[in-house]
Structure formats: structure tokens, C-alpha cells
């Protein structure tokens, strides 16, 4: 069955809800009544349910299979967290109802903040950013605000970003008015310390560094880098996307970090939901804490207070990043996750995530090409050298995995190696699953080397759709359904 669009299936007279007819009250719309129909299709509830159930069946998901997507931390999403987030006391409260009627909401935010600060060893956290990239923006704004307070915002305009960084890092720095200066990587996949030091200067606002980095490696020199940045008057923004590798074992505060966002939808397992919603609280050092944006929750003598405006603030908030207070629904899920694990469980999370990645690395390094020597953190990075001369590209290899029942790893990222394949198993996969996966990858690698190009070029073949024409999609974008022209409709 091909699944039509709802617009192709609906009928004017059908409706999937029953609403009472309005009484004939005189309207007060001031003459602004809508002209004509909206154009929405009418469908009964059974049709809507079936449509979306069928659509869902065209998706891959972590609940249904292994999802070793590097840098995305596709771990198990506990259903307890979903249940907790749906408690009416959390889901059915309004951000602007009197704070006297929501003490439990403030308590939840405050308690989550406590966990985040304790786990990162940082003294403050800005809760409102709605996603990782939003958290980066928050961190850089705090840095810029701190520079402004020092009277150096006009002169310190350069931000150092390693070549291997996520695209959000340079994009965020630019959005915050900084210029971006790339730092090269060394042969062993880490920041080139000499190159980095050479770039330091009075115009440097700070550095944005991911740790563990996007090559799946811990930046050995991170303390030195932090100290050097600080010595030169800059700040250290740490991209926390890979916090899952060290949670419960290493406190970023001990590494000299000034700001770090935490993807609740990665490390703390709030579901990815096909692309969101996420949540990106940002922990801040003493130096940056005063500039944290509005709103925030404070505690005085055990009493929690929501500070929503500058007038009520004792600090120097740099402004506001969102309406309301952040991703409450995600906060509940994350706290439920944290409480379930406890500090012992979270440390085990990091250890098992790292163990799983190293197990994959060790088991596949002879059949694929590991990009760097030594143990990795929670991601194993391979490149396409093992495919040399086979005619099989990284993309083909990834697509062939789909026919084997796996979601592909992250490909072509990080940019510092050729044809990158970044595998992040996460801690919620069993050894059995990894063994099956390793077996499959080894088989594919052998197959490629043996010249079975067809297995790769034609892949995937067992999916609801095969490879799609992305070029035409971008060249002549069709971004919405439009009714067929009358002539066609009459056919």
C-alpha cells in the first residue's frame, strides 16, 4: 500500500472530532472574520489513526533495532520517564499561572539543576535553552556578556574552533557576532596544541571545544588548553554533546570549563522524537554565572523563587532566550532518568558506553580501518581506507547496512578523516547485539573487498523507499502539497 497524503484522502464532510455546535452568541471579531475555507482535509478518527500508524511503520527506531549513530547517543528511552512527564501536575500546568500554585514545578527544576551542577562540578546552570545548539548560543552569549562587563567585547571577537567540531559550533559563534578561527587537528585526532597556542591573543574571546571530541577521543591536553585560554583572558566553552562518555566519572568543572551545554536528549535519554524536541541546559563557571539569562529559579533559605525579569534579579542576566522557562517536559524525563540511575548507575553508563565502543573498535579494526590508535571513548571512528579500490564509498557501505537491519552509523563526519564512519553503540546495547553487529560489519567489509559492488550500489533494497533523488529535491523544492490542477482532478 502506498500511503497517500491526508490532503489526498480527506473529504469535506468528514471529521475526526465531535464538538458541540456553538450557541448563537454575537461575535466580537471586529470584522476580522476569515475569508473562505482553510483548505484542511476532513478525515474520521479511524482514518487518521491508521494513516499515522502506517506512517510510523516506515520508520526505523531505537526501540526496534540497533542505532549506532555516532554523536547522537541513541540510547534506550525508558517509558517510566514518559509516564512521569504526563503527570497532570507537570504536563497540565501553565507557565504563567501564579508561582504559588506550582511549587512542585520549581522544585523539579531546582532538583534537576542540582543534579546537573553536581555531575558537572559547576556552580550554576541556565535551564532555558531548548536544544544543544541553543545551549551553545546561551554559553557564547554569557561569554560575550562577561567580556562586555570587562569592557572587552569590542576587542575580543575571535573564537577558536577545532576543524573537527560540530557545525553548530561555528554557526553559533557567528550568530553571536564572533569570527571563527579554525584550529587544526593532530595526527592522533586531537587539538594541535602548538597551533592552538599560536592562535591565542588579545582578540580571542575563547575556544569552543568538544570533549570527548568528535573523533571519539578524550582531549588529553584539555587542562592545558583551558589554562592557556584563561591565561590569555578568554573563556572555554565545552560542547557537551559527548558527555555520555564521562558522566559520573569526570566533572567538566575539573577540566577548567566555563560553559557547557548538556543535551538532555542524548546523555539523559529524553527521546529524540524524530528530530526533537530536545533540551540544552548550560552549566556555567563562577565567571559566567552572573550573566545567566532569564528566567531562573533561586533558593533562599529553602524557599524557591522564579526570577523572570531583571528588576527581580540580583545578578546581571544577559537577556532572555525563550518565552517561559525551558523544556519542562524534558526536565521531568531527565530527572526521572537520573534518579533511576543514581550516581552509581550514571558512572556505569559512561563506563559501559566506552566499553561498548572500544569493543566494537577492537573487534573491527582488522577488517575496517580505525582512524586513530589507542582506546576511544564512547565512539569508534573508522575511515574509508579499507574500501580503497573496491569502488564502494562510505555512503554505499552505510546504505548496505540498512538491508542488514541496522541504522547506519554517522558518515562523513567528523570532517578530519576521509569517508568517516562514526559508530556510537551506547551503553544500552547488549554484548549479543554488538557481536551480531560486528559479524555483519565484518561480512560487509569482506564483501566489499571481494568485489561484490552490487550489494552496495543497489542498497537499500528492502526498505519502504530506495535511494531518493536529493539533488532534484533541492533544485526544484516541493515543500508542500498543492491541489491538483482542475484538469488533472477530473481524470
Amino acid at each position, binding site marked *: 500500500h502506498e500511503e497517500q*497524503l491526508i490532503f489526498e484522502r480527506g473529504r469535506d464532510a468528514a471529521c475526526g472530532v465531535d464538538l458541540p455546535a*456553538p450557541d448563537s452568541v454575537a461575535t466580537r471579531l471586529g470584522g*476580522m472574520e476569515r475569508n473562505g475555507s482553510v483548505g484542511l482535509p476532513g478525515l474520521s478518527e479511524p482514518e487518521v489513526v491508521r494513516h499515522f500508524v502506517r506512517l510510523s511503520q516506515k520508520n526505523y527506531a531505537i526501540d526496534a533495532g540497533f542505532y549506532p549513530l555516532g554523536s547522537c547517543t541513541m540510547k534506550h528511552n525508558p517509558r517510566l520517564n514518559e509516564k512521569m512527564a*504526563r503527570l497532570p501536575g507537570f504536563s497540565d500546568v501553565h507557565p504563567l499561572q501564579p508561582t504559588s500554585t506550582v511549587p512542585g514545578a520549581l522544585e523539579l527544576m531546582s532538583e534537576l539543576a542540582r543534579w546537573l551542577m553536581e555531575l558537572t562540578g559547576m556552580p550554576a546552570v541556565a535551564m532555558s535553552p531548548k536544544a544543544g545548539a541553543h545551549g551553545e548560543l546561551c554559553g557564547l552569549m554569557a561569554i560575550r556578556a562577561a567580556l562586555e562587563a570587562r569592557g572587552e567585547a569590542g576587542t575580543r571577537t575571535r573564537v577558536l574552533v577545532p576543524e573537527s567540531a560540530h557545525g553548530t559550533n561555528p554557526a553559533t559563534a557567528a550568530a553571536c557576532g564572533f569570527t571563527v578561527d579554525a584550529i587544526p587537528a593532530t595526527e592522533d585526532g586531537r587539538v594541535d596544541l602548538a597551533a592552538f597556542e599560536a592562535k591565542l591573543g588579545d582578540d580571542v574571546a575563547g575556544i569552543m571545544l568538544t570533549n570527548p571530541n568528535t573523533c571519539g577521543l578524550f582531549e588529553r591536553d584539555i587542562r592545558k588548553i583551558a589554562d592557556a585560554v584563561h591565561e590569555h583572558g578568554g573563556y572555554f566553552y565545552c560542547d557537551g554533546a559527548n558527555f555520555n562518555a564521562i558522566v559520573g566519572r569526570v566533572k567538566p568543572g575539573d577540566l577548567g570549563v566555563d560553559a557547557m551545554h548538556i543535551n538532555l536528549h542524548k546523555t539523559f535519554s529524553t527521546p529524540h522524537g524524530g528530530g526533537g524536541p530536545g533540551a540544552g541546559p548550560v552549566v556555567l563557571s563562577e565567571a559566567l554565572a552572573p550573566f545567566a539569562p532569564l528566567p531562573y529559579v533561586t533558593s533562599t533559605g529553602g524557599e524557591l523563587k522564579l526570577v523572570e525579569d531583571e528588576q527581580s534579579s540580583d545578578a546581571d542576566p544577559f537577556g532572555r532566550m525563550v*518565552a517561559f522557562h525551558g523544556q519542562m517536559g524534558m526536565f521531568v524525563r531527565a530527572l*526521572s532518568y537520573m534518579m533511576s540511575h543514581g550516581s552509581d548507575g550514571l558512572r556505569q553508563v559512561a563506563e559501559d558506553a566506552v566499553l561498548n565502543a572500544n569493543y566494537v573498535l577492537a573487534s573491527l579494526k582488522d577488517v575496517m580501518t580505525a582512524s586513530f590508535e589507542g582506546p576511544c571513548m564512547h565512539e569508534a571512528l573508522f575511515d574509508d581506507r579499507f574500501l580503497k579500490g573496491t569502488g564502494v564509498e562510505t555512503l554505499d557501505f552505510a546504505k548496505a547496512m540498512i538491508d542488514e537491519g541496522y541504522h*547506519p552509523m554517522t558518515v562523513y563526519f567528523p570532517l578530519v578523516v576521509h569517508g568517516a564512519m562514526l559508530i556510537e553503540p551506547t551503553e544500552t546495547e547488549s554484548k549479543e547485539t554488538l557481536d551480531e553487529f560486528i559479524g555483519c560489519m565484518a561480512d560487509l567489509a569482506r564483501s566489499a573487498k571481494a568485489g561484490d559492488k552490487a550489494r552496495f550500489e543497489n542498497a*537499500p533494497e528492502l526498505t519502504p*523507499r530506495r535511494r531518493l533523488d536529493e539533488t532534484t529535491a533541492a533544485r526544484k523544492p516541493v515543500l508542500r502539497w498543492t491541489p491538483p490542477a482542475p484538469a488533472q482532478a477530473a481524470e
Partner: protein
Amino acid sequence: MRYLPLTPDDRQQMLGVIGAKSMDDLFVDVPEAARPANGKFDEAFDLPPHQGELEVDRALSAMAAKNTSAGSVPFFVGAGAYKHHVPASVDHLIQRSEFLTSYTPYQPEISQGTLQYLFEFQTQVALLTGMDVANASMYDGSTACSEAVQMAHRVTRRNKAVLSGNLHPHYRAVIETTSKFAGDAVEALEANVSGKEDIASQIDGDTSCVVVQYPDFFGLIGDLADIAAAAHAQGALLIVAIPEIVSMGALRTPGDMGADIVVAEGQSIGNALNYGGPYVGLFATRQKYVRQMPGRLCGETEDVDGKRGYVLTLSTREQHIRREKATSNICTNSGLCCLAFTIHLALLGEKGFTRLAALNHESACKLAGALEAVSGVELLTPAFFNEFTIRTPKPAAEVIEALADKGVLGGVPASRLMPGNDAVSDLIIVAATEVNTDQDRAAYAAALTEVLS
């Protein structure tokens, strides 16, 4: 730990394969300064150990029970987020594993479910707002609004935004914050509950855009055609922010009136109040500006067998390709919330959506009538959709607290969002929706009468 499949045996075997003696060998690159003394991790964190479901459920349920939920009282709080009834099938469907636990659809062959609903979502948003195209959602209405300003700057190659004084103060604050750091200029007018403001005179040749809210922060609705004309005359764009998308079932669309970018808070359709998030920002514009849009876009295409399919497209606008030259640093959309939006709106359809809007307006009209009748109360909003402003003879913040003590959540005191503005200290912004009953309205009027007497 229930979520961790590795057993102690597994770990030993795996360490053996890796050639490591212990877990510590894998963390060898961590500097000494970041290792706890004697390896005592437990002491390094002042946090409790793991707990079972029952214990976590109890603790969080106790916390939740301290809050007054909207459904448990007569409830009239709005100002950017609204209490509506969401059909049970919506929450059921968005919890399907294949939607809930999938990633961004970067592998379209195994993500057609997500991609097709995004395409349906984009079409719905375009229809509702009266625009050509929409993106696959933003974080929320406020950030969508700020992104719209940035986009207008790119389109016009200017960098000054003019904001209506009756734009939601939070939206204004987000724009101001973003603009401050990006080095852009913002001119914001004073709030005016009458809706009378001279925006046109603020627009000049440096103005990239005018931002107005519809219905405005006080609930007022008015024609935007003149503002659109004034903006266009100066080469500026008109950005319209819609805090309550249900209004589009009853009101003329911004697209109809000349808007260039329409942003909206989509929470009302499909999504719970959630104490402010997650919500879903809607973002629509004219076809000609599509390559300057921020955020994800889903487009139609074909696969190698010629079958219709969907992909994320125009990604050369985005950070993972363009890095510092991207149209936005945004990297997430509000996926599951826009799925909820799409499903709820599919259930409503033309008939249901327009009727829902009519019921909301009716509820507000009835409430306005009931509150107008309370001695000392003045209704300040002559034309409104489901929200309006009243003036009370006592300070609004005190009135709202007193009502809460009586078990009625009666709206938002304007002073909460505009602190320091004495002109609004006696104004309450009141919202009514289809969930309010005659009893709710009567309870409000009675409580207000008592509070004011």
C-alpha cells in the same frame, strides 16, 4: 541497573578482547586533576544511588501533586500558551516507538514516516497562515519570531527591526537578546492596550522588518493591511506573530493581509501546557524567500524506482553543511510536537478546526459578558478572539493571587510580563477556550466579585 544489559561477565570478556585490564585503562587520557582521590567516584558526587521505578514514581508524583493542574480548576490563563482538549489518539500515536525513538530523518529510506508527516505539517502550517511555504518547525513561537527577524535582515540586507509595543514581552526580549549579540538594532514601541500605535512612522530605509502580534498581547485583533503596505513601501518585511494558532480558524490570515513571514506558537494544537515547554514554533513565508529560511525543510522527490518519497532538503542553508555561514545555528526541530500538531489538526480537519475556533470565541464572548458585569471591572478589548484584557480597581497581581486562593486561575496580570510599567498594573489578560464550562465562568465571576468587594 535495569537499563544496562552488560553483565559483570560480559564486561570482563569484552575487556579481554580490547586488551584492557580494567575500565580505568579506557579512561587513561583523563587528566589527574579530574580523577577522584583514590578512585572513589561515589564520594566525588553528592548524589543518591540508583532507585527502582516504584521509588522514582513516588518521588516525582509527590512533586507533581504540589502543583495545581489546569484541568482541576476554572482556568483562564493564556498570554502565549493555552489549555485545550487534545484527543486521546494524539498522545497514543506520538508514543509509538517508531516516532518517539527515531532520530532526525537523515536516512530517508528508513524515515519516510517522519518525513511524510513533516511534509503534511508544512502544508498545514502554510494553509493556516495563508502563506506559500512553511518549515518543519522551530523550538517555539518566541524563537521562531527571533529567527524571523534574523531572516528579514538577510533578505533585506538591513539590520533594524521595529517591534509593535503589543508584541508579547517575552518575544520582544528574545529578539532583543539575539539582536544585541548579533549587533542588530531593535526599535520597540510602548505597549498600548488600546492597540493604537503609530508603527508606520517608525519604518525607514534602514528598517528590515516590522513585527506585530495578531491577536496582539492584549487579545486585540485589527487589520494589518496598512502596516503591511507601510512596511513594503520602505522595502521592509512584515512579520506577524500568532500566539494562539486556533485563532486561524476564525480570523483572516496574515498571508491575506500582506505578511511576508508568519510565525506562531503551535502549542494549542496537539500539545500540553507542560509549564512552558516543549512547544512547537511555526514558521511560514513566501516562496521567494525560501532559501533564506531557517530550520529544517522536508521536500518531495522520487526514489530510484520512481516512487514518490520525501527527504530533508535545502540543507545547504544549514549549519552542518555551511557552518558559520548557515542561516541559523539551529540543529533540532520540535519533531514530536509537530507530529502531535499534525495529528490533532488532521483529526479536526476543516470542519473541526473552524468549529473549535468558533467555540473558543464563544467561550471568550460569554466570559467577557460575565466579567463585564462584575462591578468595577472594565473590558478593554473591543474585538478579540479567545483572549481579552480587563481593568480591575485593585492591582491586577493581587487580584490574581486572591483568585488563586479561591481556586480560580483567572489570567495573567500584565505587570508580570511588563514589570515597572505602571500603565498596565491594573490589567489582567484573560483567556477562554473550549474547555471552560458555564460553571467555570460563573465561578470566575463570583470569585472576582468577592475579591473586588
